[in-house]
């Protein structure tokens, strides 16, 4: 019974990592940028949810505002910080991403203070749970798992079946060829950032409910873990990010369950190193072929 409840626990955590990892992976897939500001977008999302809920907004409105806020923020960051560097070396882009991350953290500290605030999770999602046999399952777990699954299904349809999804895949394979086929590469890239950030917004809500303490650097570790998940699954691959997210979530819960809660982060990064030694492109990553 303990196993089942830990399994659900792991799925819940894994769902959050998967949602965040998708944003990393999609952005990497399209412009080969490790968007280190992604975790901090989640932090901003968390604060938006915190304030809208405290001001007595309906949970659905709060959720919508959070997702919209994250999306707009990502678009603004992309336009101001990354678009001017479209043809710059990738290292400049990476350093800019780290800069944006630090900027967001410090702005949050300036405006929201560095003190932790508790997140009113009970205002967002119903408390309590249902009994499955002898296992008590919290509503928050169920809602988290289902919401992520639905988001991922929509994302998969979007990428596989729609015109924009095909454009995204085309741009990620060959930007110049896509441009010559009449695809507006810039707007496709912006759209990719927006989708990734919308998923991060959902992730922010779920994460805040699970770990209800808000502080300006809360996104850093979450972002790093999600990055590990994306690399673990094969960065650039959408199913890989989902798989990696769940794998890392499960692993963390497992390590905690056997009583090594202090070792969680260490084990996660250890596993990453081991996977990369065996499969440098991740579980579902394509082998990279250099053009000659």
């Amino acid at each position, binding site marked *: 019974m303990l196993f089942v409840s830990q399994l659900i626990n792991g799925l819940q955590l894994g769902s959050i990592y998967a949602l965040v990892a998708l944003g990393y992976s999609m952005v990497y897939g399209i412009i080969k940028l490790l968007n280190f500001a992604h975790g901090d977008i989640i932090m901003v999302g968390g604060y938006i949810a915190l304030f809208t809920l405290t001001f007595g907004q309906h949970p659905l409105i709060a959720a919508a505002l959070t997702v919209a806020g994250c999306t707009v923020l990502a678009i603004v960051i992309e336009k101001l910080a990354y678009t001017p560097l479209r043809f710059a070396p990738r290292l400049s882009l990476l350093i800019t991403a780290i800069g944006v991350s630090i900027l967001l953290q410090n702005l949050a500290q300036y405006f929201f203070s560095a003190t932790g605030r508790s997140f009113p999770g009970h205002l967002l999602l119903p408390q309590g749970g249902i009994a499955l046999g002898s296992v008590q399952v919290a509503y928050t777990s169920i809602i988290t798992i289902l919401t992520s699954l639905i988001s991922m299904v*929509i994302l998969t*349809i*979007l990428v596989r*079946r*729609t*015109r*924009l999804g*095909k*454009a995204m*895949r*085309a741009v990620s*394979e*060959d930007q*110049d*060829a*896509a*441009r*010559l*086929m*009449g*695809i*507006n*590469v810039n707007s496709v890239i912006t759209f990719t950032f927006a989708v990734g950030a919308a998923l991060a917004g959902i992730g922010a809500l779920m994460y805040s409910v699970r770990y209800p303490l808000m502080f300006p650097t809360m996104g850093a570790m979450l972002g790093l873990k999600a990055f590990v998940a994306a690399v673990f699954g094969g960065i650039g691959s959408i199913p890989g990010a989902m798989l990696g997210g769940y794998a890392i979530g499960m692993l963390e819960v497992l390590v905690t369950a056997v009583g090594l809660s202090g070792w969680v982060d260490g084990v996660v990064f250890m596993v990453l190193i081991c996977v990369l030694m065996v499969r440098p492109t991740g579980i579902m990553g*394509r082998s990279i072929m250099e053009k000659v």
Partner: protein
Amino acid sequence: MGKRDPKAPFVPHRDAYKAPIMECVNLGIDFGGLTAVNDFCITIGPTEICGLIGPNGAGKTTIFNLLTKVYQPTRGSVYLQGIDTKDMNSVKANKAGLARTFQNIRLFKNMTVAENVLVGLHNSISYGLGEAILRFPSYWREERIARSRALELLEIFDMQDIGDQKAGSLPYGAQRRLEIVRALATAPKVLLLDEPAAGMNPAETEELMENIQKINKVFKIAILLIEHDMKLVMGICEGIGVLNYGRLIAKGTPAEIQRNPLVVEAYLGKGQSDSESGGEDSA
């Protein structure tokens, strides 16, 4: 006959009284101190098949890159249906009616054959994102139309049955053909083919020639091709421009080009100018 001023406009008879679809006027580009293309003038009729030939490094692909706005010209202009393309980028040039294939194939290799064509159809599908996610009926209708259009285009090369295969898994010749279909999907007015027969065997080349003529007739578009296979160029092109060291050295019908001493010299070197065999060079 035999020689025609390379700067004078020249289109086949049936297009002579129609406005040209594309005109290049004194087009030129420098890379640093190197003049890659200079003084390039060409006039293409709306239904013409014309060819661009010349030794390796003569600047043929550079001209394609200039036309499709991969490079911006240093000098001169390109007019598409009389409109100056000066302020266009690659996307706008494509929307204005220029589509191309590449010398080294650049398909979206991890996407399926049909999806590659659907990417080409990108700008002709009209549903928005909201419809795709919310209003399923209209989305499915558009998507179905696009898909059947894609298969229709694939039929030109008899590829409609392999629509679900990965583009990267196709044999070389089929990848070249798919690239042409993908370019056609963007509804071009001028189709630019960069060495379409490269790597093809004689039978495949023969088939390609028929298909190029078919595309020209069915879609009523102009085709400009770069090719080293003289059998193809002399067989289907109505007008041919010969490029050497970035300059157009001759222009004319296949017969005129074969007789032109300057062309023979560019290909074979001096002293052979009495040779009649300008048409035997192959890739």
